[in-house]
């Protein structure tokens, strides 16, 4: 059983997607439970794999169907891939259980299809992460992408157009990658990553290899939506349903970053990537542009999910820039940020789901008075937002710490400046929301003997959401005297608890980031990178 864990991580969701699609014809509730159980099994397997890799310190190599490498397809679970597997399966699992209600209402009569696509997408990402074969990676990338297009297309009325946009650019990206792999195969005759890593150092000067590197990287950059090839992302993420966005937004870009790290370090080797090509200056410049563009564009958004989408573009810049700094601090920061940003994005999109459940739309201006109406949710949201801003001890601070350290060590002060700038912009973005949720609608307060405040206040201003009165708990503290009764109505527990769990996780990830870096990420980076 344990020896087959690497297969289990991907096979279970893959089969579950088939079963879920079929089960939808017979029972409308079954697909959801099938998906949840499959993702849970996959998550537990990933955790066990990570524990095993950390304990033994040796990568697990699993030969699919018993064919040995380099001819057969091998799955390689090392520190890096095990960690990313845990992230993927965790996000997929938590997002699904947290959004059960949304799944039931938004995808009525489409439960089978939705849940099947959901697990299929996860299976694709899991496979991409675990595989040690460059071509197999392309196949799984397409599985994930195609199911991703379908998931996004199930969203709002404008979603199909956004999906088409995504489909065009996504296909171009994937094709570029495939083309790169083709060139590699022509030049080396191998598709196995470990095998390629032994061949490439002997062919450093080959222009075919160089071209393969550039075109692979370009394809991945399109897929991760870095500026200026980001155009597909904001539409795709904001028009899709929240549960799909909660799966796709935290994972797609992050897994693509992982693939980039994997291709650059494992396949092309650090000697080739950083020693021979040395793309630091140009890649960091692109990253800086992405950070600044993403942050400024986020400022212009009125829609909450759209704002988050632009923040993601900035965050992609964090990771790409950090990685291409080429020093241990920067690469550590980029890898740590894969974990942290996935958790933060998940928390924020789950918050978006709750806001939509509460207010019915996605405008920031609809968030008025939410601190009073759902204090627990808003406490979690505040924590997640502060993590994005980078306030210690949340996890966002620590990835930023490594990234900035790496930037200073590499002398890339423009990158350091961009990170600080983006933190400040994020502070503005989220405090703008805090203000709406805390201050508005404005109350006219007055004091017993306040001479200056002659304006008569209308007592008993009531904020009541008509749909929720019956189950609401009346807040009758004697201190809410002249602001009327505010009805506290939190989302149902199955929605609230996973969300708050993720928010608390942001603190835990922050406090234990030292352990994550020392025990996992440290071993994921080749010794050659100092």
């Amino acid at each position: 059983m344990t020896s087959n864990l690497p297969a289990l991580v991907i096979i279970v969701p893959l089969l579950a997607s088939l079963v879920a699609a079929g089960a939808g014809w017979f029972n409308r509730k079954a697909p959801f439970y099938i998906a949840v159980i499959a993702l849970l099994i996959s998550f537990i397997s990933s955790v066990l794999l990570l524990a095993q890799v950390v304990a033994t310190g040796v990568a697990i190599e699993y030969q699919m169907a018993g064919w040995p490498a380099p001819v057969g397809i091998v799955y390689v679970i090392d520190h890096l891939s095990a960690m990313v597997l845990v992230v993927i399966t965790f996000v997929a699992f938590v997002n699904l259980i947290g959004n059960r209600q949304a799944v039931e209402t938004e995808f009525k009569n489409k439960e089978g299809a939705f849940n099947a696509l959901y697990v299929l997408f996860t299976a694709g990402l899991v496979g991409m992460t675990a595989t040690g074969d460059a071509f197999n990676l392309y196949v799984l990338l397409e599985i994930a992408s195609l199911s991703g297009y379908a998931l996004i297309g199930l969203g709002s009325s404008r979603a199909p157009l956004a999906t088409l946009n995504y489909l065009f650019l996504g296909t171009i990206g994937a094709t570029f990658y495939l083309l790169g792999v083709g060139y590699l195969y022509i030049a080396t005759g191998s598709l196995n990553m470990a095998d390629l890593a032994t061949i490439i150092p002997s062919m450093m000067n080959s222009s075919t290899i160089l071209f393969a590197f550039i075109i692979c990287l370009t394809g991945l950059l399109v897929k991760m939506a870095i500026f200026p090839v980001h155009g597909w992302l904001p539409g795709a993420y904001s028009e899709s349903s929240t549960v799909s966005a909660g799966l796709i937004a935290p994972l797609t870009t992050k897994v693509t970053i992982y693939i980039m790290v994997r291709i650059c370090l494992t396949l092309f080797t650090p000697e080739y990537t950083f020693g021979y090509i040395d793309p630091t200056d140009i890649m960091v410049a692109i990253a800086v542009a992405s950070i600044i563009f993403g942050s400024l564009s986020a400022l212009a958004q009125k829609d909450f999910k759209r704002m988050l989408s632009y923040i993601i573009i900035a965050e992609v810049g964090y990771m790409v820039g950090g990685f291409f700094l080429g020093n241990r601090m920067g690469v550590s920061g980029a890898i740590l940020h894969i974990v942290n940003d996935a958790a933060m994005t998940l928390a924020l999109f789950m918050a978006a789901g709750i806001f939509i459940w509460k207010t019915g739309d996605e405008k920031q201006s609809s968030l008025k008075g939410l601190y009073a109406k759902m204090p627990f949710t808003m406490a979690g949201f505040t924590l997640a937002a502060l993590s994005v801003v980078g306030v210690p001890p949340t996890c966002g601070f620590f990835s930023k710490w490594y990234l900035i350290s790496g930037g200073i060590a590499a002398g890339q002060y423009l990158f350091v400046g961009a990170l600080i700038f983006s933190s400040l912009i994020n502070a503005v973005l989220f405090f703008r929301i805090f203000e709406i949720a805390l201050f508005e609608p404005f109350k006219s307060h007055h004091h017993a003997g306040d001479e200056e405040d002659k304006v008569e206040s209308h007592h008993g201003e009531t904020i009541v959401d008509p749909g929720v009165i019956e189950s609401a708990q009346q807040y009758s503290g004697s201190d809410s005297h002249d602001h009327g009764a505010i009805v506290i109505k939190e989302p149902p527990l199955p929605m609230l608890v996973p969300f708050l769990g993720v928010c608390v996780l942001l603190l835990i990830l922050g406090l234990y980031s030292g352990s994550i870096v020392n025990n996992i990420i440290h071993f994921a980076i080749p010794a050659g990178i100092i």
Partner: protein
Amino acid sequence: MSMETILSVKPLFAVLVSLVAIPGIVSSRSQNIREAWTFGAAAIKLLLVLSMLPLVLDGNVLTFTLVQVLPDIGITFKVDAFGLLFAIVASSLWIVTSIYSIGYMRSLNEHSQTRYFSFFAVAISATIGVAFSANLLTLYLFYEMLSLATFPLVTHHQDKEARSSGRKYLFYILGGSIGLVLPAMMITYHFTGTLDFAAQGVMAGHINSGLALLLTVMFLFGFAKVGIMPMHSWLPAAMVAPTPVSALLHAVAVVKVGAFSVVRVFTGIVGTTLLSDFGINGIVCVLASITIVVASLIALSQDELKRRLAFSTIGQLSYIVLGIALLTKSGMTGGMLHIAMHAFGKITLFFCAGAIFCATGIKYISKMKGIGRRMPITMTAFLIGSLSVVGFPPCGGFISKWYLVLGTVESGNIAFLFVLLGSSFLNAAYFFRFSTMLFSAAKRR
């Protein structure tokens, strides 16, 4: 007297105790039970802090590492004499302020008192955390926690004025800490490899003079809570808060955390040798002096009592910075003492301002004529508080000012002596002209 480092969880408990009380505060069914939680936590906190006093007076240092967050930096507490002094001031004044808050908030029938008391507890926790920080990262963590916890307190009234003041508050405080302190801290870490507060600083030998000057200025302005001009204007704006908030946070906790952080960074990170060798301290002294004089002059023209007190605070905070930057023994003693002395003096004045507002609803000095006769006890307290802030013996403020004056003489730079003396006259002017008016106008009526 043996100097020892003792491992102790007391600093951690002292920080956490008010956080632990929050679920109690939030879930209480009646106001009295809720306030009992506050007092319970405040009492335990003070006792914990005081219980460390004998050990520290014997020259020991208490440390505790909560968690190793970065390979060579942890969230670590260290209790030394200076930190403990600040913690005692903050935790004892929390009790006083809590009593005052109850009277103030209930008599004005303020809304959201539960939120108010909860965030007050967070703010005090953060203040003690700053006092006990063993390294710059831990200090930064609690500094940010304090900034964020005070935001809902400053904007308590939730009206448009509160919103614009809250914006200003965040702009300066968060802008300073993220935009200046964070990069300065990271650059320091990059060159020195440590952020621990060391007796002689950590920069010497690692950082050249130009960069050291840049970093010092970044820290000085970045810790905007200390209110060195031009980073001061959040403080008058934050006076929209309920008066107990202004009293504890903007005369004691928040602003003194700023001063404390600057002192810690100057002595523990930059190091006095580096400061004096390159004359960096001279620049800091000039910046502080400008703030002292200008703030005192502005205070003269303020009609709203709390704003006048705010500008007075801005000036007094720069005394602390000036004292430290003089780099003489007396100057440093005076600066550190002034954190405590000014805290007690200024909190008295704020309490009086709040008492006047509660009793009469008056905020403006020009409308306060004759109030000395209506509220003789309050105004006597006000007089004593202002005597202390101006620096009359035998008030506490005299002692710290005495050391500060000695410090300027020791440093041999007489210009700063004149700054101190001149500003004391201005202090006297803005308090006594007003105090005498309060009493005399009543007679004339």
